[in-house]
């Protein structure tokens, strides 16, 4: 029994079953709540995948929204324009739909992974703040390219995407992402990622191929961000380049930092927390107990994140749950020193 609880496969299966059950029961939930819950699942995927790059491998990336955008647009384009023929070819019905949806999500993820490869290559030469700006620049370039792509309506936005993303897909994919990332971290690869973060020079001196691990982190992180993008497109039914600007990347970074860099459980929890907090703050202007001068915060929610970031860095740079091994964290040497 004890071994069962320590088996990641068991937890993955349990999560998938729970997601499927929840999905069946979701008919009773108000549409808006359901949408927010789905977005929370998608944000878990984004945060956990960024954590692989930022937290475990120590490569500070600010371009996650760009990878997400690629996944979203590729998946939406394929499912809207290219899938009708395939749907009939597969014999129609819900099994065909499942195959198709998995297919478009994977395609989005793979293209995002290719972009991750392109970003990973300069990351070999850059560190810290330089890398942050280059990844930010990549994200912006991707956005501008999409804005200029007529096949997906460019700057006027791309609508009419089928609402395939159910609770099962959002949380099922989140569970798979967590499973892959945690398994990876406990493997030889995981040691590789962690050594790159903790001491690149020492790692290299020990004969570890640091290049391989950096690029791998970017490719995998981008893949899952792409899948998250595909899920997002099929949850909102309408996407626009401005929904993938660098504020989105920053929000994911805040999730990772709040949860503690290099701590999958903490980061997932922070993703849930921030999604719900973000939605709650939207309604701040409507509550009577909120004083008049605080009401504009509903439209300027980033103030809250900025205060969270600054106070965390000044008071608890390892994040809320960072540095806690009990939470499955892999604190960096610096975090250990600080804590």
């Amino acid at each position: 029994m004890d071994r069962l609880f320590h088996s990641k496969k068991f937890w993955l299966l349990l999560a998938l079953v729970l997601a499927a059950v929840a999905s069946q029961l979701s008919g009773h939930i108000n549409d808006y709540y359901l949408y927010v819950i789905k977005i929370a699942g998608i944000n878990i995927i984004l945060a956990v995948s960024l954590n692989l790059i930022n937290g475990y491998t120590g490569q500070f990336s600010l371009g996650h929204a760009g990878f997400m955008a690629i996944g979203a647009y590729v998946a939406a384009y394929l499912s809207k324009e290219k899938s009708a023929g395939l749907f009939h070819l597969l014999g129609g019905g819900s099994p065909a739909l499942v195959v198709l949806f998995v297919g478009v999500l994977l395609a989005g993820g793979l293209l995002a992974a290719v972009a991750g490869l392109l970003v990973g290559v300069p990351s070999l030469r850059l560190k810290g703040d330089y890398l942050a700006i280059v990844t930010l620049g990549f994200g912006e370039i991707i956005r501008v390219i999409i804005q200029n792509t007529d096949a997906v309506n460019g700057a006027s936005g791309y609508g009419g995407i089928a609402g395939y993303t159910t609770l099962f897909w959002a949380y099922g994919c989140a569970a798979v992402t967590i499973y892959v990332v945690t398994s990876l971290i406990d493997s030889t690869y995981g040691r590789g990622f962690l050594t790159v973060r903790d001491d690149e020079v020492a790692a290299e001196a020990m004969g570890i191929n640091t290049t391989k691990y950096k690029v791998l982190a970017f490719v995998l992180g981008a893949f899952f961000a792409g899948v998250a993008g595909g899920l997002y497109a099929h949850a909102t039914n309408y996407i626009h380049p401005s929904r993938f600007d660098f504020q989105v990347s920053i929000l994911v970074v805040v999730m990772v930092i709040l949860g503690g860099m290099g701590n999958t459980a903490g980061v997932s929890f922070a993703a849930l927390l921030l999604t719900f907090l973000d939605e709650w703050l939207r309604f701040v202007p409507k509550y009577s107990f909120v004083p008049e001068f605080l009401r504009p915060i509903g439209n300027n929610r980033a103030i809250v994140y900025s205060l969270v970031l600054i106070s965390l860095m000044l008071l608890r740079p390892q994040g809320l749950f960072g540095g806690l091994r009990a939470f499955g964290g892999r604190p960096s040497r610096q975090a250990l020193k600080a804590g």
Partner: protein
Amino acid sequence: MTGIDLSQKLTDFTQQLVNGVAAGTFYALIALGYTMVYGVLRFINFAHGDVFMVGAFAGYWLTPLLMPHFAGHLAPFGICLVLFLSMAICALLGIVIEKLAYRPLRTQPKLTVLITAIGVSLLLEYGGQFAFGSDPKPFPPLFEDSTLEVHGIFIQYSQIIVVGVTAALLVALSFIVKRTRLGLAMRALSNNATAASLVGVNLDTVISFTFGLGSALAGAAGILYSIYNPSIAPLMGIQPGLKAFVAAVLGGIGNIPGAAVGGLIIGIVETFVGGSSFSSYRDAIAFAILIVILLFRPAGLFGRAVTEKV
């Protein structure tokens, strides 16, 4: 026939160049702040673009307050006063930011400081929206703008003023950096911080001074930018800030003349791309330049490559 075409093309080219230089001055002024702060602290002050925005808003607030007292012939003094006061407000802001947010983290890993800087940047942007609302505001005109025509090339007075003020500020900056004790201390610090503190350079004072100087230049850029494009908003600092950072890297980060040249190059390239058939890629071009520079010449045009010691 071809002669006319050629002269027309030359006129167009010169016109674009004029516009590009004017646009480049803002990037140059902002880039100087990035480069100086990087020189002394080795970190990118993400919030620098937002100090530029605060400069513009300071001008927005000061102009109706001060300009009525400077009518007619006194107007140039009024403009200078608005410019200097806005620069002072920004300098103060820069010093306060450094003191509250960056100084306590000086011994922490660089990433911690970078994240804090992102936080400060968001705070200024959305704090600005919170206070002023997100809709763009018209910047009050400081003087009557008109256009000058020289051989078919149109030059606005505001362009002349923008370029002139920038040139004056650059001269002043180079005087401060090269001829004053604080400037000397700044250069010493950026050369070797430990050695500088050993010979009695007060790190805290010099770092505060550098932040103040850089932020004052960003404030000046904010005023000049608003004279040239009289519509200001709390998020206006994001894009110019990022592009000015690219300019600083292009010139070789830490290199003061490099930042000015880099800014002009970015402004000119952007204007030319904006006038070509690729105009919709205008906002991406600076980042493309950044990636190319970092791949092929990471030290920038004027920087010297530094070998990392282990």
